[in-house]
């Protein structure tokens, strides 16, 4: 980078690097430095959430449209309709007062009833019917005037893969069906299901490793970027300070790392 960086950016780099290393200090041991970072994370996140919720919900979705409607058509009942969700929202807060906590049930009933109602047809359509539809693909297709059964493993919709898919779906569904005992032929089906499950979990583990490593790569990218002269070498200096801090804490045993949050 060339040229002087803004002070806010340089200060930000030092703060970001310091906080990153505070959290990484947990890799040595649970320690006060990590706890400071952990509690600060929760505090700042909650503060951010409160501010954004206020401006998005109470301001943008409620008070601004409501006051606009009332200003334009003060006598029309429809202008006051947003008072209904406002009232329901306030009823939710009745939970804080034991004597009138039961009022919050009306709001929860409204929300949960709506949520359950909209979910039923959409869940059936998207998660059940559509998934079953794709499971029962045709095995034999018409190709060049003749019938054809594809043995191409590389194409997911091929005949052979459709058979494997059907076996997989039915055997895994059967494995989770505990109303009958898994003995004899049922045991063979259940064991097939377990085989499929193990492969899927192995693939999931492989992807999880990839995902977690990516997160670490991202942090190291930032630490490398902030280790430059333009920022005043915060990574190196703060790393040294944190190592010293951990050594000092370890040696003098200032605080015992018992869980307390």
């Amino acid at each position, binding site marked *: 980078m060339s040229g002087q960086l803004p002070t806010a950016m340089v200060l930000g780099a030092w703060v970001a690097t310091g906080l990153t290393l505070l959290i990484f200090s947990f890799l040595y041991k649970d320690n006060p430095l990590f706890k400071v970072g952990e509690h600060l*994370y929760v505090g700042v996140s909650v*503060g951010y959430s409160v501010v954004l919720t206020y401006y998005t919900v*109470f301001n943008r979705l409620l008070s601004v449209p409501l006051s606009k409607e009332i200003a334009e058509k003060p006598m029309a009942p429809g202008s006051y309709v947003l008072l209904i969700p406002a009232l329901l929202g306030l009823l939710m807060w009745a939970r804080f007062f034991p004597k009138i906590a039961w009022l919050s*049930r009306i709001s929860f009933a409204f929300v949960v009833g709506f949520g359950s109602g909209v979910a039923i047809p959409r869940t059936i359509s998207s998660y059940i019917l559509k998934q079953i539809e794709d499971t029962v693909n045709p095995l034999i297709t018409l190709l060049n005037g003749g019938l054809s059964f594809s043995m191409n493993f590389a194409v997911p919709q091929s005949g052979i893969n459709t058979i494997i898919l059907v076996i997989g779906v039915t055997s895994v569904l059967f494995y989770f069906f505990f109303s009958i005992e898994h003995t004899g032929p049922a045991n063979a089906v259940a064991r097939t299901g377990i085989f499929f*499950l193990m492969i899927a979990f192995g693939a999931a583990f492989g992807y*999880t490793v990839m995902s*977690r490593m990516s997160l670490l790569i991202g*942090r190291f990218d930032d630490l490398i970027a902030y280790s430059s002269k333009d920022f005043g070498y915060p990574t190196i200096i703060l790393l040294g300070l944190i190592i010293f801090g951990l050594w000092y804490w370890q040696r003098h045993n200032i605080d015992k790392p018992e869980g307390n949050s």
Partner: protein
Amino acid sequence: MIFFRRQLPLIITFLMGAMFALQYYIPHPVSEGAITAVSNWMQIITGFAMILGIASLFHVHFLKIKRQVPGWGYSLILYLGMIITMIVGFASHGDTTIDGGQTMFGWIYDYTMVPLQATMFSILAFFIASAAYRAFRARSREAAVLLSAAVVVMMGRVPLGQFLLPFTWDITQWLLNVVNSAVRRAILIGVSMGAVALSIKIILGIERSYLGGGKDH
């Protein structure tokens, strides 16, 4: 009074649930108007509900500071972080940028919240490696299958693995698109049936744990 505490919420749940389950199949303008309005109301009510969780956190840590329990200093740090962010946020009117420039609120977000949140989850990378060494043993046939699939996918999804053993790419694609899809599909169908059953139980008033807020439900 019992009617308002007990029956009324259940009646509301039933009416809302039945109405909006049927709404999906009724394209009439009145039906569409109803869902337009109510879905907008839900956005507002959800905002109020979020404050419930936040208030609870405020309360728990306030008590820790007040009673000076061991570790109350950390609760104080949490509180300070919260209060300062809120003060700065309201002073900036909730804006993280203004005319292309960053506000103080934006600075706090970029240089404290982002690195803290990103780093908190990135340390899992170290623990997953440690756990893989300590616990990932082929004790049985099933474990061996799981292990082999994991190794093939880890090889097949990175350039070095594709370079050293090109066939791992093709096997990974097949594992994900066929075997993994089959398993996930079965789990999805099963879980969804359970979710639909639960939703029906809620609408019919058989399942009432969501009500809370008192003894009599």
